[in-house]
């Protein structure tokens, strides 16, 4: 047993992308969870006397046009942006898996479900999210709803293509011959085979969702101000590029590092969970 755990750790250790990605994600998670400990300042309290303070020991990332501490806004922004991203991943995972399983396993549903998914994918990603939030009104919950609508079809397609392969395998035929119910066959014999590509896909959905949420917030379609999402902070700094470029600079770095971490994690997980893919690619 210990041998196997050591072997596992050696494999993780050799996968440098996985390590780097995981490390970045841990750093961002610490920012999000420890926002209260990392800063004593409020991310929303304004103090006009401090407006446009450049970065210093007192204001690590400077202060914005209302004298709010940009460092505090970026740390608490991590919490809000990750929360919206995670919620999107959760909704996408549940609905996308259900649709993918149904359409791959019950062939009669396939045509109808896949045409619907194709039509949803016909809208350029952010445009669909923008259209939905425009109708529902700007809020965090609506952003989650809109982003899930964007990523559910893409995820359902990936699950479906795994199901199509697995359902022809002998162990599934055997389970059916033994009289297992559809539910049992799907949950016990089909779903486990879909997990590896699903997990990889969800990691990328997390990355896209962070980027898309930032864009939505920037357009004024995310949680309304003064909520400190990364996109909102960048939108705040947009009119003061000349006088106070630091307002825009730091939240953008935070977004980039988070998305980079998730992308590396996704690439690393793909190699780790399915070594065959790596051989094919290189």
């Amino acid at each position, binding site marked *: 047993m210990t041998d196997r755990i050591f072997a596992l750790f050696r494999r993780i250790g050799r996968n440098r992308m996985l390590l780097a990605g995981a490390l970045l994600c841990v750093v961002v998670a610490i920012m999000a969870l420890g926002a209260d400990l990392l800063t004593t300042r409020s991310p929303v309290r304004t103090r006009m006397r401090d407006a446009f303070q450049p970065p210093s020991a007192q204001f690590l990332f400077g202060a914005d046009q209302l004298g709010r501490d940009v460092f505090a806004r970026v740390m608490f922004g991590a919490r809000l942006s990750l929360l919206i991203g995670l919620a999107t991943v959760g909704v996408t995972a549940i609905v996308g898996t259900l649709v993918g399983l149904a359409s791959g396993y019950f062939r009669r549903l396939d045509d109808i479900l896949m045409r619907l998914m194709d039509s949803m994918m016909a809208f350029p*990603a952010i445009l669909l999210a*923008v*259209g939905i939030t425009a*109708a529902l009104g700007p809020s965090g919950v609506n952003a989650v709803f809109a982003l899930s609508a964007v990523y559910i079809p893409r995820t359902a397609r990936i699950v479906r293509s795994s199901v199509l392969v697995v359902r022809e395998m002998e162990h599934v035929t055997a389970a059916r011959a033994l009289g297992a119910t559809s539910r049992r066959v799907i949950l016990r014999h089909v779903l486990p085979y879909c997990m590896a590509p699903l997990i990889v896909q969800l990691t990328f959905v997390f990355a896209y969702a962070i980027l898309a949420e930032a864009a939505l917030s920037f357009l004024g379609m995310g949680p309304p101000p003064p909520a400190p999402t990364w996109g909102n902070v960048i939108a705040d700094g947009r009119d003061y*590029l*000349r006088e106070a470029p630091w307002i825009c600079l730091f*939240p953008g770095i935070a977004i980039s*590092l988070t998305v*980079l971490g998730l*992308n590396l994690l996704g690439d690393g997980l793909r190699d780790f969970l399915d070594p065959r893919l790596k051989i094919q690619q290189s």
Partner: protein
Amino acid sequence: MGRYIAHRLATTVVVLVVVSFISFSIMQLVPGDPAIIMAGLGASGDQVQRIREQFGLDQPFMFQLARWYGGLLVGDLGESITLSRPVIQALAERAPATLALAGVALALTLAIGVGAGVIAALRQNSWIDRLVMAIAVFGVSVPSFWLGLLFIIVFGVMLDVLPTGGYAPLAEGFTAWIKSLILPAVSLALLQIGLLARITRAAMVDVLQQDYMRTARAKGLPDWVRIGKHAFINVLVPVVTVIGIIFGLMLSGSVVIETVFAFPGIGRLMANAILTRDYPVIQGGLLVTAFAFVLLNLLVDVFYSWIDPRIRYD
């Protein structure tokens, strides 16, 4: 091939019908009475009633839907509330700027993305390869609108060499035109350049290992024929397939990028429509971009089946 195209056309028509339905339904998602929201704050009861009648919001759902599809058949997408002109006209006025932006961004993406991917594949595991792949991974991680703001700070404010926003039509001269496009096009293209470089590299690495490449070498063909002809043409197959995806990403990105650069295109029209609750413009913009995206993908698929006959399934 005729059968494949017929099949693809049929599914495209179905998708377009559903796409129109989804665009129409956006209005049904509006909580409460859309007429009150569209009329804006402080509108009188009369004004709300007029909007309700003008947009047929007092009619049953099926009637509204029939009116929407009927309008589509004759190219009528309804009236804009804030611009006081037909939606289709507002979109047509903004289309040239967006097409110019997308065209230049696409040209940049193809030239740099494919070029970098090929070079990386030819020098596998060298420092150039590592650098290209590192930039590609960073490229897909940086938000494009933030990159645009950085460009404005560096090239517009600090160096003061390029305009920080707006669009100069080609009629005002080529230099002014291209200058107004450089920053937004590069910001828009970066994500796709990274994506395309990775895809091109993988395809090139794959092709270089094929038997016919060894044969070409054994025949003593010069490098430029082997790489430039035998290998490159086969690399183009996966590149063509992702052009549709790249175009979709550009349409997506244009909403934010056009807002950053105050660029008078369809994306900014939609961003403004959202702020002013001009739902007909939002519906029309969604519909037109989705149609463009679907039709381009149809073209890509047909072209793809023509260059690679193995694809025609059934």
